[in-house]
């Protein structure tokens, strides 16, 4: 487990997402107005780039086939009844920088 400095908040426009590749993972970071949420940038349906989706409240809609993913817990909320989901990442804002917590074996380079 490690916290990684990702980018300054200004780089992610309000109610939009941006993709960032870090530690071998592609992560979509969203700006929900003072709150930043991060999920795996890969729709469980056909692998669509969630960072390019339209934000709808606390969810994002995949641009390929309109699957809807909850940004809080990574669950698919549309279509109903799908049990799959995407990984979520904890985030925090510190020193004017967005941080993301990576799981597993990665470690920050010095």
């Amino acid at each position, binding site marked *: 487990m490690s916290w990684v400095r990702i980018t300054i908040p200004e780089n*992610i426009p309000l*109610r939009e997402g941006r993709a*960032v590749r*870090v*530690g071998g993972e592609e992560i979509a970071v969203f700006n929900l107005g003072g709150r930043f949420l991060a999920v795996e940038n890969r729709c469980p349906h056909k692998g669509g780039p969630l960072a390019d*989706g339209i934000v709808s409240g606390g969810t994002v809609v995949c641009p390929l086939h309109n699957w809807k993913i909850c940004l809080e817990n990574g669950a698919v909320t549309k279509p109903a009844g799908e049990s799959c989901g995407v990984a979520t990442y904890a985030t925090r804002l510190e020193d004017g920088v967005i941080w993301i917590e*990576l799981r597993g074996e990665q470690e920050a380079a010095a």
Partner: protein
Amino acid sequence: MEELIVVGNGMAGVACVEQILKHAPKFHITIFGEETHVNYNRILLSSVLAGEKEADEIALNSLEWYQKHGITLRLGVRIVDVDPVLKTVTGDDGSVTSFDKLLLATGSTPFVPPIDGVEKEGVYTFRNLDDARALVEQAQPGRKAAVIGGGLLGLEAARGLQVRGCDVTVVHLLDTLMNMQLDATGGRYLEAKMQQLGVRVLLNRITTRVLGESRAEGLEFRGGERIEADLVVIAAGIRPNAHLGKKAGLKVNRGIVVNDYLETSHPDIFAVGECVEHRGVVYGLVAPLVEQGKVLAATITGNRGPQFQGAQPAAKLKIMGVDVFSAGQVMESDGVEVVRYEDPAMGIYQKLLCRENKLVGVVLVGDAGDSHRYVDWLRSGADLAGKRRHLLFPEPAADGGLDAAQMPDSDTVCGCMGVTKGAIISAIHEKGLNTLAQLKECTRASTGCGSCTNLCQQLLRAVAPDFEEDKKKVLCGCVPFTQENLREMVRTQRLRSVQEILEIYGNGAGCEICKPALSYMVDMVWCGDHEEDRSARFINDRVHANIQRDGTFSVVPRMRGGVTTPAELRRIADVAEKYHVRMVKVTGSQRIDLLGVKKSDLPKIWADLGMPSGQAYTKGVRMVKTCVGTEFCRFGTQDSIHAGVELERRLENLYTPHKVKMGAVGCPRNCAEATVKDIGLVGQEGSWQVVVGGAAGKHVRKADLLITVETTPEALEAAELFFQYYREHANYLERTYDFVERLGIEKVRKETVYAPEPVKQALRERLSKAKALSRDAWLEREEPVHPTQFVQIQPLEEVLV
């Protein structure tokens, strides 16, 4: 079974037969028709001439209908004799047929005034489908046509010839056009409208001679004045066809005399329609004839009782953009009060004639939208004392303008076929009707001039349980209003951003359905002077490229009219190699698609291409597909390339409710398929047809004719008017073909190309304002709306895996 013979297969005769069938008669019916067509809507002949309808679209009864009802149909047989004693009719084919009951519905024939040389080639009457077809054939662009007679039919014929490119003059005997229906002022307004449309009007002219050897070359009037004309149409009125009545020994004055039960002087012979004279009046318009048919149907089937007590004359001119309606008394007289409204700039003249607080006459020129209200006041003799403040301006409707709801059941909805609101509503309930087509079939409402279509639809909408047009559909759960309401809210509440709308009228969040729709709406309503919020746009409209299944993008540069240059092609080839474009493909829209491009490469590719965005990724102006036209093609009659390129240039970079694909072709061979495009320009010798609402996708739809114009600038302007009207009135994601079908082409025409000049001017102004604020989206390569619009974010620290 008794033998009923009907002589005449026209609207009045067949309408009467339809009514007879409702009485479940004990007749075997034989219908003789002199024309070789099934019963068609004669009122729409001028629409056929004007190219607004095809000949086969105006049929009212199919051959199957005759068969289904066991009717023997004998077409192409003219009945030449009636024997009232032996009770037989004789046809011009020598056939003799016996009858128990005979119904004469022989209609009328055109009146041809005594003019020298009317037998010359090039002189036509305009009365039946064959006449219409002959005129369509003859009406070549550039021909000089003269129409003798400035009445209803003459004016309609004139406009028909004119849209086909003829140079048309209407010659009228008196000093007022439509003098049977209009007063002098109304006539002047109408004259101005006709002149505005490009039809020349000559009043107070008595035609004495058709000039020319064997072919018509011109007309000469009393006093010696002459005009050139190689096509002459006589529309100087009609005369009842009463000669069979005479042969049958019936009482005949101008027409076959009938009483209030439509009985003639022979107990087994009846007559209906234009051949009939009732209380000294011969009717030539469809509504009273249908009324007569209903009465006669009761009489002839042994249900004698209903009476025809005469009808107020009522007439409507069917020229798109020239609204004229007149009913009842037209001229002022003692004891009659006149309420008048005039607006010369809008070309509107309205006059009501009242006697003792009752309406006795109405004349409407320029705006006849409320005619049904006045017809009902006329018919019912309603006391207008309480309405005097609002006579010409309807009181605001209580519930959002659904004025059908306010009509009493006894009010007539379809004036042509005499169908009341009550009859329509009970038909909807009893027969379970859900579509306009079913309603037409079952009640005949809206099968005449078609002006009550909207009312019929309102009634279906209000009453039919499963009405198929789901017009009240709200945009989505986030903002539960119809798009029409939302457009109004945006406009009146001066909302300029998507988020504002969502916060004031919605749940504040929005979704993938409403956000792009609202984005379109604020852009459209404020003509580009809105607060653009890219987060509410689909990814394609954030990066101006089309997202593909693997998350890469495709790039289609604009190539106006499908015309490119060697230099452009070289740059496209270089870009494709430099950025390892996975596939280069020629699209169906005469453009080149570069597929498999990374988002971060987009700005660089656009810069290298040096070409504008083709908007292939958005609900916007795609392209104008063209054929080579007169520039190269040996068959071309119009310069389709330059027209197409110019059209694309004028509309490009604008957003639309759905994608807009256009086409321009130089001749009717239609090589660039303009008739299945959203907007098409179809060139022909001397004119352009502007067509709209075509489709060649999931379903195929031939575009409707919007207007025929002579010059390229006029064609472009007509296309622009439609384009802006579509932008303003279509729902988001509604293609033009659904839009045109929902509104009806008549309404679209009336509110665009045939709208009053100030309305057109306003459409043009909003379009040019939007156009002025629009720009090539690919210029964002130099000024991105956000620093990370195209770039992939790099983390501030690297992480080792």
